[in-house]
């Protein structure tokens, strides 16, 4: 599949116009997150799972961002979904990409996003007893925390 076909087919699936540019930025409704990721992998051929993260847009809530690539045809998708204000649940991509496992654990660790159906959702970089999620904008840089031991 070439980039133009991918752009058109994703656009018609989601009923939106997908802008030109590399990577292709695709805004996905949260309810179709896993479905679109599966389509990206199986139909567009984006088999390379690059990364997954989130952005805290303060009062507008969290946005989960994932990048997947079709290395053979040079197609890159930046999939984004806005979870909405006060919502921190998101569908997990682990059934689609095995690489999502650690990335979603990191995203949970740093932003507190709960990925439904994740097989092993626990902190990965911070210790188990850590309070709060540091990459949230509400988390102060100098938040005091108890001594290590």
């Amino acid at each position, binding site marked *: 599949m070439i980039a133009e076909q991918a752009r058109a087919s994703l656009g018609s699936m989601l009923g939106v116009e997908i802008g030109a540019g590399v*990577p292709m930025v695709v805004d996905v409704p949260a309810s179709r997150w896993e479905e679109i990721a599966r389509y990206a992998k199986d139909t567009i051929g984006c*088999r*390379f*799972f*690059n*990364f997954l*993260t989130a*952005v*805290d847009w303060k009062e507008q809530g969290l946005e989960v*961002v994932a*990048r997947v690539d079709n*290395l053979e045809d*040079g197609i890159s998708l*930046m999939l984004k979904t806005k979870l909405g204000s006060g919502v921190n649940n998101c569908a997990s991509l682990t059934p689609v*990409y*095995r*690489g999502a*496992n*650690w990335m979603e654990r*990191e995203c949970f660790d*740093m932003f507190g996003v709960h990925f439904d159906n994740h097989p092993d959702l626990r*902190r*990965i*970089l*911070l*210790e188990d007893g850590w309070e709060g999620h*540091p*990459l949230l904008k509400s*988390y102060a*840089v100098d938040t005091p925390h108890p001594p290590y031991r």
Partner: protein
Amino acid sequence: MLDVNNTTRVEMDWSGPERLQMNMGPQHPSAHGVFRAILGLQGETVVDVDAVIGYLHRCHEKLSETLTYAQYPSIASKTDYVAAMTSEFAYVLAAEEIGKFEVPKRAQYLRVIVAELQRIASHLLWLGTWCMDMGGALGGGATIFLYCIREREDILDLFEALVGARLLYGFFQVGGVRYDIPDGWAEQCRSTIDRINSRIDEYEQMLVDNAFFLARTQGVGVVSRELAQDVGIAGPLLRGSGVNYDIRRNAPYSSYQDFDFRVPVETDGDCYARYRVRMAEFRQAISIIRQALDKLPAGPISSRPALKSVAQIRLPKGEAYARVEGPRGEVGTYMISDGSAKPYRMKWRGASFSNLAILPHIIPGHKVADVVAIMGSVDPVFGEVDR
């Protein structure tokens, strides 16, 4: 075959169908930093792995939100401290893409030269430590390690002459590079890479006929093409699994399209394939450096006037994902600017983090001793895993 699902866990035993839990690390000599693997063993075979990371976590992503575009590049070195040039590179590329900065041709070539020197230095450290991990069978304990460190030292000397620092540089800045090469540096660089080129032949001779080395690497830790992409491993690991992809060629940045080089690919996906890829990359890196030194254009090394304050670089609103092909694969920064002097959000895509995530998929079924060989072939740097 072992039935991994039909076992019971006991405290300590070594025979029969019981499982033994063994803790490896975080202070294990072959952990290449601080990494803890909780291995579930059945006899001497590993049946499950829980990888524990985060010991070196400094929250670079939060830190980058507090530092300006002029301040952070030298801090970026500290993510992957074995290949500090690469991390700085990824950061400034993202900022330049958002701010639409032109980078002078000379600066682009200098960036390529240091990035390739860094690749050689990093691969040397990988080869030395990996061979040492696999023990005395490889030509006498620490022999290869010391040889590799000797050569790496020469490259660090080059960096010291260029920047003044040996490990963490601050060489890159948004819009160019900070230092131009001093007199005589190009000649010193040429003689260093010539010497390393001949020494690489020497290492290969030590290893290629070594039955122990082959036994410990061939067919060990096989990553299929499909698994490699699904987990998102990159660099020599990806190319060792038969995926012909190199960002320098597939999405050139910083004038890589000006140079002729080959992208080595192996199809076996085992430790030996990854070894072969990296050994070929040494020679390609040397070739790129030679070409860049030959064609190095004259001109300025930065496209913007010097700063009077660290908060002077302001980028327009926007976002970019910039990536470079580091020694360990795709190092990327996903940067969002809100129009101020600092990023609103920045995500490090550390190559080592994604590469390390392959371990739980490939280690089960191997012996404990193979864990060391597989770990080393992944070449993780924990500064970049934990960020």
